[in-house]
C-alpha cells in the first residue's frame, strides 16, 4: 500500500455525472466506463494535489460505512485500474496541472 499517492483526472476524457454515477469516456480509445457512487466520489475529488489517502478519509469513510484500510485498498485498486485505461493519472508527487478534465453535473 502506498500512503502518498496523488490522483488526477486525465484530460483525454469526457465525463458527466448522472445521479450517483459518473460516466467517463476515454478519448484515446472510446471506451466507456461507469463509476459507481463511491468511485464517483473519488473521481470528483481527484484534483491532483490531495493525497488519495486523504480523499478516502475525508470523502469516502465519512459518507460510507467502510473501514479506512479496506476503503484505501479498494481506492488504490480503482485508481490503478483507471490509470491502466489512461483516464486517471497516478503519481507519488502532486499533479498540480493534471486535473483539467471537468465532470459536468447534470
Amino acid at each position, binding site marked *: 500500500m502506498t500512503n502518498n499517492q496523488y490522483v488526477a483526472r486525465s484530460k483525454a476524457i*469526457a465525463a*458527466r455525472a448522472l445521479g450517483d454515477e459518473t*460516466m467517463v*469516456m*476515454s*478519448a484515446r480509445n*472510446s471506451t*466507456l466506463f461507469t463509476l459507481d457512487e463511491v468511485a464517483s466520489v473519488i473521481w470528483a475529488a481527484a484534483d491532483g494535489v490531495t493525497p488519495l489517502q486523504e480523499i478516502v478519509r475525508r470523502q469516502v469513510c465519512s459518507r460510507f460505512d467502510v473501514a479506512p484500510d479496506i476503503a484505501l485498498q479498494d481506492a488504490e485498486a480503482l485508481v490503478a485500474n483507471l490509470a491502466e485505461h489512461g483516464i486517471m493519472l497516478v503519481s507519488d508527487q502532486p499533479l498540480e496541472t493534471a486535473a483539467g478534465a471537468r465532470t459536468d453535473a*447534470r
Partner: protein
Amino acid sequence: MPSVSAVQQTSSVVVKIGGLPIRLRCDDPAFVRQIEARYAGYLSDSNEARFDFAIELAPPDTNSPDEDVSVAWNSGNWLLERGDFRATWNPSTAQGNIWQTPNPFSLDSVLRIVHTLILAREGGFLLHASSAIRNGRAFLFSGVSGAGKTTMARLAPPDAALLTDEISYITRNEERYDAVGTPFYGELARAGENLQAPIEALYLLAKGPENKIETLEGAEAVRGLMGNILFFARDPEFVKLVFDSALDFAARVPVRRLTFRPDPSVWELIV
C-alpha cells in the same frame, strides 16, 4: 478529313442525405449511373452542394473491404481508409477525393463516415438502428447485428413509413431530435423513405418469448445508446462531441428495452 479528338468528360451527381447535398464527380459515366441507381430517392434536383468529392476508380480486385476502417485528422484533412477505398476530405475547402473500387457500397462507407463527422459537430449521429415513422413520430430500434433491426422493419404495419432497416440518421433540431430517412440499408436491401420526423422513443432490442418494454434511465440508457452509435474517428475532440450528444439525447428521448417475439404483435406496443 476532320480531326478527331477525345475529351474526357466528368459526370457528377448530387446526393442529398439528411438535407446535406454532396456532389460526387467521376469520369466514368457508367459508375455515375450506378451511383444514381444506388441513391435513387436521395438525388438532388439542384447542382448546388455543400461538399464536393472527385472519385477515381481503382481496379475491382485492388483490395478487400474486410479490413478495419481508419479515420484520422492530419494537417487540415480527414483521411479515410479501408481496403477498398481511400479518401481525403478538407472541410475548410469543402473538397475531397475518393479512390475506390468500382463498387457503390465502397462509396456508401465513405459517405457514412463523412456524415458521422459532419453530424458530430451539429449534435447528431448515425445509429445502428432501424427506424420508422408512424402517426408523425419516429421510432428507433437499435441493436447489434442479429438483434432484430431488420425483423422490426419487416414486421412494420402498412401505416409505418420505413426510414432504414440498418443505419438511422439522427439530427439535432433545436430542442428535439429527428430521425431522417437514409439510403443505407441492411438485409432488407431497400433504401428508406426520404422523410423526417421527431423521435418519440429509442428501443434497444432483445429477442425473447414475449413482448415486453422496460424503461432505461441514466447511465444504463447512455450505455445502451453509446454502444450502437457509429463512430469512426478516434480524435479526442470528436469523442467528446459524440459523448455529449449521446448524453443529451438520452436526457431528451425516452430509451427503452424492447424484448420481443418476432411476430407482428410487437408493433401493438409501439404507439
